[in-house]
């Protein structure tokens, strides 16, 4: 294996693992007393959002305020990434120690039944099929500006100076709302730093990551109502089936997931929206909105600014949050909360 391959592998590990590590950093900050309140799925999602937020803040300040070149931005962000990973590892260790300490009595856990393992296997097969599907459509064009922006950023070494569609220098430029959308610059950073091919990074790696995160976010919402492990696996199997079959039309949500999973609008719709809905509904069901919940809502909203711009992302999330909150406030049903105010241990 040559050095370029090792760089590629390091890049893939960074993309896949860094969100989980970063999520532990947030988990330490917003730690709740109940064990398992922040599940591994939610930890990954929080880290997923945090990585996008950090890149957004860094590249926006670095480019718009400090007028740094692309190369300088990349070198600086590499240091930021390493620092974030290092602090996150410390947070992970701290979380493990604190979790162990808080478990003064053994927690009763259900064993995995044979049916659970079979369903888990089927879910994994569906995920592999989705992965193969994503790889199978790699040669098909997506009409967006993200891949061209990544390419033009890499080839010219500049940020937002060339029109990605025509490859000519801007005469006027971008709107302010789009100038802070640093997602393509972040992707270009990953390609430059880790030697990844833009097409494979966007169309395969990041798309698959978004599909998995969307599944985790939808699962979080559904877990508020489904407690049995078997039912959750069945949910996952049919979720996968819908994703596999849903791109019969190029504007359907499954098409957005499979074909444009790397796009900020897809991440906002497929990951942030269900997560925001879960947050609001779970706050209402527990009867309180703690500082930790507000921080998570702010994290999602702030992240959406840097991946879709001021107009679309934040607007859609605020509307959804408002609608969900109003809906929950109107219902006024509390008996369910008294019985199930604490998260349940997974049943089989």
């Amino acid at each position, binding site marked *: 294996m040559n050095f370029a391959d090792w760089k590629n592998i390091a890049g893939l590990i960074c993309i896949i693992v860094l969100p989980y590590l970063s999520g532990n950093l947030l988990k330490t900050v917003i730690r709740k007393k109940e064990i398992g309140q922040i599940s591994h799925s939610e930890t990954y999602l929080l880290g997923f959002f945090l990585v996008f937020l950090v890149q957004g803040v860094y590249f926006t300040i670095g480019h718009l305020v400090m007028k740094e070149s692309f190369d300088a931005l990349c070198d600086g962000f590499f240091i930021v990434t390493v620092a974030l990973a290092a602090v996150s590892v410390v947070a992970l260790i701290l979380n493990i120690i604190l979790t162990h300490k808080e478990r003064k009595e053994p927690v009763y856990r259900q064993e995995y039944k044979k049916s659970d393992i079979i369903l888990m296997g089927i879910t994994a097969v569906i995920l592999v099929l989705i992965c193969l599907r994503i790889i199978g459509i790699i040669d098909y064009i997506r009409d967006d500006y993200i891949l061209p922006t990544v390419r033009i950023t890499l080839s010219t070494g500049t940020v937002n100076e060339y029109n990605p569609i*025509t490859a000519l220098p801007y005469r006027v430029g971008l709107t302010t709302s789009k100038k802070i959308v640093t997602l393509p610059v972040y992707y270009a950073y990953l390609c430059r730093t880790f030697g990844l091919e833009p097409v494979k990074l966007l169309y395969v790696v990041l798309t698959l990551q978004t599909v998995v995160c969307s599944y985790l976010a939808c699962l979080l919402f559904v877990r508020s109502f489904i407690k049995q492990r078997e039912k959750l696996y069945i949910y996952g*199997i049919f979720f996968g*089936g819908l*994703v596999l*079959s849903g791109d019969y039309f190029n504007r359907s949500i499954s098409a*957005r997931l499979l074909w444009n999973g790397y796009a900020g609008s897809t991440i906002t719709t497929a990951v942030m929206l269900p997560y925001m809905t879960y947050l609001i509904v779970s706050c209402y069901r527990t009867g309180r909105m703690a500082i930790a919940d507000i921080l998570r809502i702010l994290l999602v909203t702030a992240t959406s600014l840097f991946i879709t*711009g001021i107009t679309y992302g934040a607007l859609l999330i605020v*509307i959804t949050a408002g*609608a969900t909150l109003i809906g929950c406030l109107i219902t006024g049903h509390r008996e369910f909360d008294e019985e199930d105010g604490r998260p349940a241990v997974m049943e089989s």
Partner: protein
Amino acid sequence: MFTVASTMIEFFKNSKLEGAYMLLFVLSIVILYVTGRDRNRFHVIFPVILILGVVCNPILVWILSMFFPVVRFYEPMTALIPILIYIPFGITELLDRMKPLRTKRILAVLLFLYVGICGNFFGLFAGNTMTSANRYDGQKQRIVEYLEQNADGPVLADEGILSFITAYGDDVPLIYGHDIMIINGDLGIMDGYDEELVVLHDMMWEPEKYMEQIAQVANKRGCDIIVVKHFEGAKKAEGAYRFALDDGDYLVYRRVG
């Protein structure tokens, strides 16, 4: 106003088309209402109805689109919540109510196949998404690589290959991009196209009729290379341009002198 007022109808149409996912969503709501306990019904059903009623509300979309034009184009994305959350949720609850295990398993398989049939059957019938026109095949690659090697100035290209040049060509300058037809889009690019380019774009649809005018305008604009759809009777020279390449789908002309 009438266009915006059809938002709810467009939402269902865009999510359904050749598939039947919206019908599955409605069935899922019925299943969840029937199978859910009274105290759970509002938690499960009411939020999604409220979200759809607010986010897809034509009045709200109309008001917001006056300030944020891009809002009008994103109503299909809210299909995630009904389709990817509630359909599998409804199916899960329905299967949970099935008592004989054998019946449950048979129904699960049938429902999974039905979900596939409602869509494109797990990608086997991919509709308008996987066609040869959308695929970056060897022929298009040949054109893009030729442009990468030979284009010093702007390139005038047919609509069918513009996106491929933009996505796969490294620094191939274009006189106009595929965004020339996007109106009120959300690319955020403030550089516009003048009337002459729009007319040129229209002429490019029929190169067999307008090739001479195309060559004149392209030369005036400083284009080095013209890529047009292949047509019969194409001349070897058009104005300042000489024929350079024919890959069966496209003709490439290169400026000389």
